[in-house]
């Protein structure tokens, strides 16, 4: 937490126009670039990204296919390292982390929601939700309580014992959201969370995410192709060919 104090202080030293908001910065990207090596060639995927995301924000990340949305989300989630630039989340320079540090960091700071839910088929809903808690020091009793609360929050308290194959797509995504929430991370990262759902179910999921943002103060970054999905967010970022387009 001392790190985040430093961040607030340094943010104050910058005579920025939105100083009030800067006090609440959760994610800060400075000159972030990502290149992949393809044979001998360097392929730039993200170039010079500068953006700050406030705590409690709900950001939609849009852009054409191949523009680098997933790549950017993976950087925010500590699944990949930037090639250049500074990436601070909750006061920590995660671009400096080793892969095992990142692993621990992920467990404590981010919750992922995937397009295809990525539930463990051999585990019941509640066991799926419990997974992130196995990485904490909570007792089995405490874990059960957290799992019940998370399932309740997504409206699936009565499906706790069901296996993924016994759930609809929308229900599976709710379980996945519960799993992402259960360890109370700083940041929820979603890659096309409604990409595999029909309109009505997608709207329910989006409404749930909006509720999580507004009532539980969850910070959410959501990659989407769907402008209607983006409408549920507070802000929208546009990526094109690896660059952020300012609105």
């Amino acid at each position, binding site marked *: 937490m001392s790190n985040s104090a430093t961040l607030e202080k340094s943010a104050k030293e910058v005579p920025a126009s939105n100083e009030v908001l800067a006090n609440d910065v959760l994610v800060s990207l400075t000159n972030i670039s990502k290149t992949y090596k393809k044979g001998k060639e360097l392929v730039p995927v993200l170039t010079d990204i500068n953006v700050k995301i406030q705590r409690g924000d709900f950001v939609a990340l849009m852009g054409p296919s191949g523009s680098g949305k*997933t*790549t950017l989300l*993976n950087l925010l*989630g500590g*699944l*990949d390292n930037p090639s250049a630039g500074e990436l601070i989340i909750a006061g920590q320079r995660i671009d400096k982390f080793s*892969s*095992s540090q990142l*692993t*621990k*960091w*992920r*467990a*404590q700071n981010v919750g*992922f929601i*995937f*397009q*295809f839910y*990525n539930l*463990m*088929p*051999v*585990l019941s809903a509640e066991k799926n939700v419990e*997974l*992130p808690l*196995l*990485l*904490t*020091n909570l007792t089995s009793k405490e874990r059960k309580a957290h799992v019940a609360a998370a399932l309740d929050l997504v409206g699936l308290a009565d499906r706790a014992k069901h296996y993924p194959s016994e759930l609809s797509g929308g229900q599976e995504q709710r379980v996945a959201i519960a*799993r992402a929430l259960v360890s109370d991370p700083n940041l929820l990262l979603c*890659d096309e969370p409604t990409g595999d759902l029909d309109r009505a179910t997608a709207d329910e999921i989006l409404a749930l995410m909006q509720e999580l943002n507004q009532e539980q103060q969850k910070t959410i970054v959501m990659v989407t192709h769907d402008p209607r999905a983006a409408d549920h967010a507070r802000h929208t970022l546009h990526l094109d060919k690896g660059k952020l387009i300012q609105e």
Partner: protein
Amino acid sequence: MTFNWLSQIFIISLMNLRNIPQRWGTSSVAIFGVACVVGVFIAVLSMATGFQRTMSNAGSPNTVIIMRAGATSEMSSGLSYEQTQWISSLPGIEKNGEQLLSSAELFVVVDISKKTTNTSANVSLRGVMPAAFAVRDKFNIVEGRNFEPGKNELIVGRSAQKQFNNLAVGSSIKFGQTEWRVVGMFESGGGLAESELWCDAKILQAAYRRGNSFQTIRAKLISPSVLADLKAAVAADPKFNVDVKLETAYLSEQSAPMTKFIMGVGYPLAILMALGAIFGAINTMYTSVSTRTREIATLRALGFGAFPVAFSTLFESLVLAFVGGAIGSVVAYFLFNGYTVSTLNFASFSQVVFDFAVTPALVKQGVIFAAAIGFIGGLFPAIRAARLPVATALRDNG
């Protein structure tokens, strides 16, 4: 920041194992491979164990066998009547009342046809004197009666009767010019003698023109501690010209070439097959890792460590190997334990009948062998699982 690795390993392993039915095809390849290797491994070793057991069951630590100096087996030994008399007067030999527990014996090799193949095989026909029965601890006539001195009568070992034709009590059998009547069947604690036929020494000497000569003396000692004195007494006087050995030492010497042969064929065979099984296991585990790519990547994204992921893969491989090993052991046990065969003992050029013996020690060795295959087979796939690039892996399946 303590991370509960045990619970990580537990839950991932549990998921892996529950997943196996969906990967039944490839998993069964690994299981089958290990089962074959362990089955063959145990079969070969049970042959060696059974052979050794038969050879050593015959021996008693109190009994010495005395042969001509330099003779490597009873076959190549020869003792004159005078030698046998001198030896009987040596100190340290046990007495049963008036009778010295010292048995001069001779034996010849006769042809009998095997029940299984009807081909002829060499069988030992031993000529003994009354002391022979007292010298052997576990000797027991279980059917019929003992031969009468001076008659062409045989008693046959239990194993010999089981393996060879015409040895039922009451039947007659001809070796060379001589016709013999089978009058009894004996046991000797499962030992080597059960592969033999016994008769009166005098009759055998006459039938095979051995004059009054013998080949060996078996004698019971007052206690094992007199062995050194006995050896010294024999060495001190050149007229003896014999070697004194404990029966146990002699028999293990006799079984060594055969055991070595079985091991020499068996171990390379088992290792060769094990290589095959290792490749099978490696292939199975690579398949397991690649079908679980998305699952592993998801767990890693949630914050599960690389080590628990690797360890669980190794664990799965070990479990498959153990299942294979157990199947192999059980199959080997039911197919081979107690399976009776006869083989030529190189040392005596006569048939030894013995049972394959699948002992707990062998099963333990088989299980360790299986574990080694599972470990080696799982190692590289486990490393691959640990190094899986999470972002790319999620992308591949997303």
